[in-house]
């Protein structure tokens, strides 16, 4: 395929009277890691939910084409079966469901051990653990990433994948993101962490529901570091350099 994997044009999403995504355009190509940066409330997670088709996240306008298919009319699991998936910032916990079962969803003969090893978890210790509150936040994040790896998706949307991960383990997360690309997939990487965003092939900055700056990750990170953004001078998005 020569065209974009994901092509978003003029996407709008509102909640009540509030516009959350405002005429948003974004393109992601095959085997591309694209970092999306933005201050809190800029619309990053909303974009992830709209793309995945979460309940109540139906766009009010625009189009989203994924691998040549219009995503908007499709149900969430239909989008997943096309090769799109999402790793939540705060992953859900499942009482009674083992890590082995969680990683083997819909794949009866799947061997989950390699995916667990890739996220730095020992299969012997973790395969029979439950994906419930007995896992720490960091462990749960890694299991979520292993679950994404197990899908071998065409496009993985990772919402703050390194949240709750200790500094020493961030390299694991970076390796996983690269592994997704090495397997032929693309990644939409939503993050605040510059060291994570820096591994992307391209990046965008989101402000007040619109992409305000795109390009090389170093330039976008530098722009994001700035006290103001080009669209609102910081007054709307509230972004202030720490």
């Amino acid at each position: 395929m020569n065209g974009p994997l994901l092509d978003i044009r003029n996407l709008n999403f509102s909640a009540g009277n509030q516009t959350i995504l405002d005429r948003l355009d974004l393109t992601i190509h095959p085997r591309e890691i694209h970092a999306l940066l933005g201050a809190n409330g800029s619309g990053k997670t909303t974009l992830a939910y709209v793309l995945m088709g979460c309940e109540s996240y139906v766009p009010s306008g625009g189009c989203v084409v994924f691998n040549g298919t219009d995503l908007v009319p499709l149900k969430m699991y239909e989008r997943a079966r096309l090769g799109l998936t999402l790793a939540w910032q705060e992953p859900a916990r499942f009482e009674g469901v083992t890590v082995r079962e969680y990683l083997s969803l819909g794949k009866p003969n799947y061997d989950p051990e390699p995916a667990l090893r890739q996220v730095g978890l020992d299969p012997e210790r973790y395969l029979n653990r439950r994906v419930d509150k007995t896992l720490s936040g960091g462990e749960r994040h890694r299991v979520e990433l292993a679950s994404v790896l197990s899908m071998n998706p065409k496009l993985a949307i990772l919402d703050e994948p390194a949240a709750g991960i200790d500094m020493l383990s961030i390299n694991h997360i970076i390796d996983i993101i690269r592994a997704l690309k090495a397997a032929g997939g693309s990644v939409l990487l939503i993050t605040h962490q510059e060291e994570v965003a820096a591994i992307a092939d391209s990046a965008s900055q989101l402000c007040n529901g619109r992409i305000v700056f795109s390009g090389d990750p170093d330039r976008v990170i530098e722009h994001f570091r700035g006290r103001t953004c080009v669209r609102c001078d910081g007054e709307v998005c509230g972004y202030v350099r720490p």
Partner: protein
Amino acid sequence: MSDLEALTRVLPMVGAEPAILDDERIAHVVGQGHRILSRRSVPGLDLDIEETPDAIVGKMTIRAGVVIEQPIHMCFGLAHPTGSQNIRIDVVVEERATARVLSHCLFPVAQSAQHRMQAAIDIGPGASLTYSEGHYHGPHGGMQVVPHASIKIGKGARYFSDFSLLSGSVGNLDIDYLVEVEEDGIAELTAKIFAHRTDRITLKEAVILRGERSRGLIKTRVVLDGEASAEIVGITEAHAKGARGHVDCMEIVQGRAQASAIPIVRVFHPEAKVTHEAAIGSVDRKELETLMARGLSPEQAVEMIVSGILR
């Protein structure tokens, strides 16, 4: 087919094998209606059970200091569509003894029948009893199932119970357990129920923490579909210094089912503590969407979440 065969052939539905009845290392009792069809004891276990016209009545004693290695299987049920079964049993676990009882309640073809159990369980100081009760019911419903028990847990003793009704339609289920825990004793009660059609579930469990540092947990997982309904009452009282209790109830409601949860916590000592949590509603949206984002259909996702909760 004999009544014994009719009951034992469904043992796999509650996780047991008919071959346990032939194993001389394993104690068992099999009762159909008010008749005892098979029984065996093992060293250290006194099994004094008899038939009467209107009940199976008896006493089971695990002698002091004895550890019964293999689970004791108690298979009760009805092999016919109609009938009645009353069981009155005393269980005594003497000081420092340990045993595990697997109670299989089997009603594969029942349509209009009754099963009543009245148990008194006395666990001596330092003793331990694990009591697992698994029910298997056919698809018809129409039963009255009424298990009531009074359990006394001695100093430093432990009691773990696990009630499960996961197959078929029961009709009316009315559970009433009262557990009293002495100093350093532990009581953990778990109930897992999947109710269908017009099933009516009443589950009342009370843990009274009488002794210092006694501990209690009531954990209930109920899934309802069709027009089933449930009322879950979990009571924990703490009367002594250092007593700790927790009530944890989760009910998932599908279709036109209805559910209520009533956690009651009472504390009568300033250094005791009891907590509770209850959640009633449909399947958690985030869990559902997470599984759908991995390609499961809504039906597959609900099935996985429900089976996990009831595991």
